[in-house]
Structure formats: C-alpha cells, structure tokens
C-alpha cells in the first residue's frame, strides 16, 4: 500500500515565477492538506481540499492556490514567487472527518 507521494522532490525557481507541486494521497484517503515548513520551524497549514473544494484555509495570501482532482490527488500552485517562499512543502492525507493525517516526504522549493 503506497503512502502519500509528492513530486517533484526538489525544485529551484527564481523570484516572480510560478510553481506547481503535486500530491497523491494514501490509498483510500479523500482529503488532502498542504503545509509549508520553513527551515527549523514547524509546519504551517496552507489549506485543505475535500470533494474538489477548499474546505479550510490558513493565513496564506491568494498567491497560494490549489486544486483537487476526482481521483483525490491534489496540486499546490504558488504564483509570483518570493524568496520567503523557500521551504519544504508537505502534503498530508486523511479520511474526511478523521483527525489522523499521514504526511508525504515533501517537496523542497528553493527560490533564488
């Protein structure tokens, strides 16, 4: 049984560019949450998707947007990249209504 998978593993972009990160949830899970983890910090909640809709959102600007597909996989899009967007982006999946979340290995984004 595959766990949560994310792609790509690493990504380097320049300021002002746009980036798309991808996540496939654990088999059977229907809910995907995205987190940003800056170096040496705890993960910060970006948003959560269920039934292809954004259900919860953290304190992140509109430059951060997402999408969930019918197969429950999800994308995180970040526009107009800033240096401060450099971080590990984590995807977590769960059953909707279940507190237990399983994290993927993350995508390391570096903005130059």
């Amino acid at each position: 049984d595959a766990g949560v998978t994310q792609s790509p593993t690493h990504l380097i972009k320049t300021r002002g560019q746009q980036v798309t990160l991808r996540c496939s949830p654990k088999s059977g899970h229907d809910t995907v949450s995205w987190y940003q983890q800056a170096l040496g910090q705890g993960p910060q909640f970006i948003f959560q998707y269920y039934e292809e809709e954004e259900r919860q959102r953290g304190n992140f600007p509109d430059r951060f947007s997402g999408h969930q597909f019918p197969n429950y996989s999800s994308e995180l899009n970040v526009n107009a990249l800033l240096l401060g967007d450099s971080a590990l982006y984590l995807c977590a999946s769960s059953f909707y209504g279940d507190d237990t979340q399983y994290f993927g290995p993350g995508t390391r984004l570096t903005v130059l």
Partner: protein
Amino acid sequence: QQQVKQSPQSLIVQKGGISIINCAYENTAFDYFPWYQQFPGKGPALLIAIRPDVSEKKEGRFTISFNKSAKQFSLHIMDSQPGDSATYFCAASGGDNFNKFYFGSGTKLNVKP
C-alpha cells in the same frame, strides 16, 4: 499569536534516559493533540495522539501526559535510544479548526550512546 508553544528547542539525553518535551496551547476548543517525529529529509510521521477525555496515553516507550486545566501536554520517551534522535513536533486541532493543525516549533532530540 502562536497557538501552540513547544519547549525545549533542543534536548540531549543519554541512552536509556527519559526524554521529556512540553507543549502549551491557547485555544480551549482544541480536542486532538498528536505528536509527530521527523527525520532529516523526511515528512513528519505520526507517533501518538491524545484527546482531552484522558490524562495519559501510553504506546510502547512513548507516553503523552495531558493537563486540560493548564492547557498543557507533554511527550515522554522512556529508555531513549540513539534511533530516537529526530525532531519532534506537537500539534493541536479542533473546534472551528477541525482538521486544521497548528504545530509547535519543534524539539531536536539527540540521544547519546
């Protein structure tokens, strides 16, 4: 306002010793408190979790102690091993923040052989 505060930032323990990490939370609506373990280059892995209806939960060498009135909870790692060396995060969710987790800033544990 930081919803979950974690201490200490780093911890060094001898093999066989007890590691203790503490967290405090603000929102009394929180009703789910997990602990995660993270190794370098990996995503966080769920270790153990507790709800406010119990004061303690034990799974193997890992124990969560929960004090609802003080709005505090802690992780105890008994018989700490070098393989436990990792960063540990507490988190909280619940109420209007259902499924929206607030994480502590992490504790880097180093268990000396």
